[in-house]
């Protein structure tokens, strides 16, 4: 629209601001909680703005003294990074050939729908079989075991995303390269995968977030510092006799940082992936 009435543009901006406020309010409150003194958080009426800025909780959680809350938190952070990282990497490695095959051979696309059927089962239905399976292989309470479980969640999801990405790349380009004498691995390496890079980045990011936020399986299949992830560690903070809401909020802020950083780094790829791949976030 070239011309807009002033009222209309005020309306558009107000709507945008409202949306931003709704999305950002919990995050802002989380941050405010993390720097408020404990007294402020239990005061009645609640004080929305900290009377004093308190950073001691950040020090507590980031300290590396043995057997402290900080050590547990940092161990959980590292576990989360490892589990989510491994699961994401494995999911992409599995999903790229599968998605390409399904995209180029529509006759086998039924297999994707079959995979989706497993998605319909509630996680709790799979918990017992998975637990017994992991126990049998001695993978309970290990990051590898948890990553393996996450792979089963991430692989179908990334395959779907990547398939729509590959669908957007014309087959004729691959036909032309085939006539030009390129082998299959050359076609994928030189043409298809570079074109699919934005979608691959998008899928990887969403997969990472999914694994990072997972709580249910992590709670069931891990029991101590060797494998416990951040989501479980944060829940532990709330489970003690005295809950420090500020400490939970601080852990939340810190847990949000890695995905946000990755998102910022991959921003450009993410945006083009979201727009070009027919992927809706």
């Amino acid at each position, binding site marked *: 629209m070239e011309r807009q009435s002033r009222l209309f543009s005020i309306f558009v901006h107000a709507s945008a601001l409202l949306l931003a406020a709704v999305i950002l309010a919990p995050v802002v409150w989380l941050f405010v909680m993390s720097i408020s003194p404990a007294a402020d958080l239990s005061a009645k009426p609640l004080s929305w703005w900290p009377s004093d800025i308190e950073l001691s909780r950040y020090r507590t959680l980031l300290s590396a003294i043995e057997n402290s809350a900080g050590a547990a938190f940092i161990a959980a952070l590292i576990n989360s990074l490892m589990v989510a990282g491994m699961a994401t990497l494995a999911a992409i490695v599995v999903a790229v050939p599968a998605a390409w095959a399904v995209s180029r051979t529509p006759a086998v696309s039924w297999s994707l729908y079959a995979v989706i059927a497993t998605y319909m089962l509630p996680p709790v239905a799979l918990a017992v079989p998975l637990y017994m399976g992991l126990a049998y292989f001695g993978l309970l309470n290990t990051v590898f075991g948890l990553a393996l479980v996450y792979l089963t969640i991430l692989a179908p999801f990334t395959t779907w995303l990547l398939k729509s990405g590959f669908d957007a790349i*014309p087959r*004729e*380009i691959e*036909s*032309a*390269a*085939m*006539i*030009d*004498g*390129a*082998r299959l691995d*050359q076609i994928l390496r*030189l*043409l298809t995968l*570079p*074109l699919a890079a934005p979608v691959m980045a998008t899928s990887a990011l969403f997969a990472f977030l999914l694994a990072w936020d997972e709580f249910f399986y992590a709670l069931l299949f891990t029991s101590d510092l060797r494998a416990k992830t951040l989501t479980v560690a944060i829940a532990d903070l709330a489970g003690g006799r005295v809950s420090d809401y500020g400490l939970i909020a601080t852990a939340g802020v810190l847990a949000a940082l890695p995905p946000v950083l990755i998102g910022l780094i991959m921003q450009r790829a993410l945006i083009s992936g979201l727009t070009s791949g027919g992927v809706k976030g």
Partner: protein
Amino acid sequence: MSALEIRNIQKRYGDVETLKGIDIALESGEFLVLLGSSGCGKSTLLNIIAGLAEPSGGDILIGERSILSAHPKDRDIAMVFQSYALYPDMSVARNIGFGLEMRKVPAAEREKAVRDTARLLQIENLLDRKPSQLSGGQRQRVAIGRALVRNPRVFLFDEPLSNLDAKLRMEMRTELKRLHQMLKTTVVYVTHDQIEAMTLATRIAVMRDGRIEQLGTPAEIYDRPATLYVAGFVGSPPMNILDAEIVGHQVRIARSDEVLPLPRDFKRTTVSSGPVKVGIRPEALRLADFGASGARLIADVEVMELTGPELVTTATIGGQRITACLPPRTALATGSTQAFSFDEAALHLFDPESGRSLRAA
């Protein structure tokens, strides 16, 4: 020795027969156009030649050697796609040289070949650009360059001009004709545009429902269409087709008193009476005096459209429409009754049942 021989090629998808036995033999240097409306099987045939699809039966020979079991890269063909199918992340130079790169041609030799091809297509100044920085016509040239550089035995074109606007399409058509005259390569070219087919081809195969309706030179297709379908498909405006009846040695136009002499070429055919379809091209009709002798039709003028070079006139005879392409300054009035004359040789007769031409062989 034929450069390309297509022997009884068939293609079935389940119960659907897309190609019902195609036979064509091409001499070296021929420009064959597969012409037909969408769904006639022309692109399937091209893909089978290229090796992108497998036939259900039949054989294809290039230089007397069956290529059906060969991989597309080993068939000595190059293909230009409708969507150009350029490699988006690579420069124009690498796009053109990609086939040579994959065939491990040394870099120096490759560069020279790319440069020569670019000069031929007048795209030397674009070699460092990416496809996204090119116009439609330039992309088309790069796609052609990618095919040319490998100097294959047979070129395959899949509707290469259909994504261009009208003016550019004419330019590129002339360009393709120039290249073919210069390089004398064997070409198989798929299109649904009859003008492209007429201007470019040395031979046209008009296809319909997985069969070849007629295979012949552009002049044969235009002057002696073998079926009603071919007659209606080639030519713009299309040939007038009128319901008529043979009575003795004359043809009577249905629901009118108009009578035409039975043309010489059709006299020896077996039909001596009964219904028939009469075909006459709009451009064969001329304005005539009522008293003039020879073949003529009298019709009521309904609509006149001046296109610039000609006056397209629509008239009716016994309720049937007939179109005539007249010189632009013809004095005519809507609603008037006019006589149109034509050469007896311009008349075509078709069997109304089979649609086949009744021309004596």
